[in-house]
């Protein structure tokens, strides 16, 4: 099942990357990042079946990082919305050269 799991994980990760590059809604881009984290988790679990339990431990840490990232990132999006009244990244361009 290793090759099949890696295939599904690759496709999911690619969908996440395409979502990040094509969407403008900050919340949806953030959810695409979560999808990419999930795809990598699938790779870890598939490899842990072949190489030992370390992969599952890494999934555990990835979950923790994803939870922390969701909390901080959504707080940033809320404070961004308070300043700009939008989450459309086209309108958030103060740092654009």
């Amino acid at each position, binding site marked *: *099942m290793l090759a099949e799991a890696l295939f599904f994980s*690759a496709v999911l990760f690619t*969908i996440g990357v395409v979502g990040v590059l094509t*969407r403008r809604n900050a919340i949806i881009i953030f959810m695409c990042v979560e999808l990419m984290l999930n795809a990598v*988790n699938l790779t870890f679990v598939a490899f842990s079946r072949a190489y030992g339990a370390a992969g599952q431990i890494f*999934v555990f840490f990835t979950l923790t990082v994803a939870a922390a990232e969701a909390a901080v990132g*959504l707080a940033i999006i809320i404070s961004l919305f308070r300043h700009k009244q939008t989450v459309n990244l*086209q309108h958030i361009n103060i740092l654009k050269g």
Partner: protein
Amino acid sequence: MQNTPLFYTFNFYLFGIIAIASAVCFVTRKSPVAAALWLVNTMFSLAAMYIMLDAPFIGAIQVLVYAGAIMVVFLFVIMLLNLGQPSEIADVRNQKWRLIAGFVGLAMLAEIFVLTRSGSVAALTLPGDAAANAVIQSGAVGAIATPLFTTYLLPFEITSVLLLAAIVGAVMIGKQRSTHAR
């Protein structure tokens, strides 16, 4: 994999295809709420795949933490900011960005397919039923807990610092602070 039963293979492919179809729906939806619900569907299918890959504990916390906690936080923020309806402004970037995204996607897919063809290192590979045996021997939680609290104890403890920093950061950033009071 010639020794896996057909039923197992069929279900693995089924959940994989459900996950990919839901992910495609998720990326193409205009409304953030619909997108979030499709992402929940993807995470449920991924949890099923984890369980089929002999990682039942990871599958359980995938449902609890990802589909349960993280996605509820996302939906909560969508509700809080009143973004439920699809916006009138074009949400998808223009043609140039779509071309770039398509090119990057194809390049990554090609790279990963080349890598999966190279095969695994035979000296490191465990027998196919090692993970299943570990679950039978020490239980679904024990198979994770034993290495987590022995070999990986220090990273586990550092995780608590990370969570504390995230809590403090989220509270500080999200705190209602009147801008003219500063």
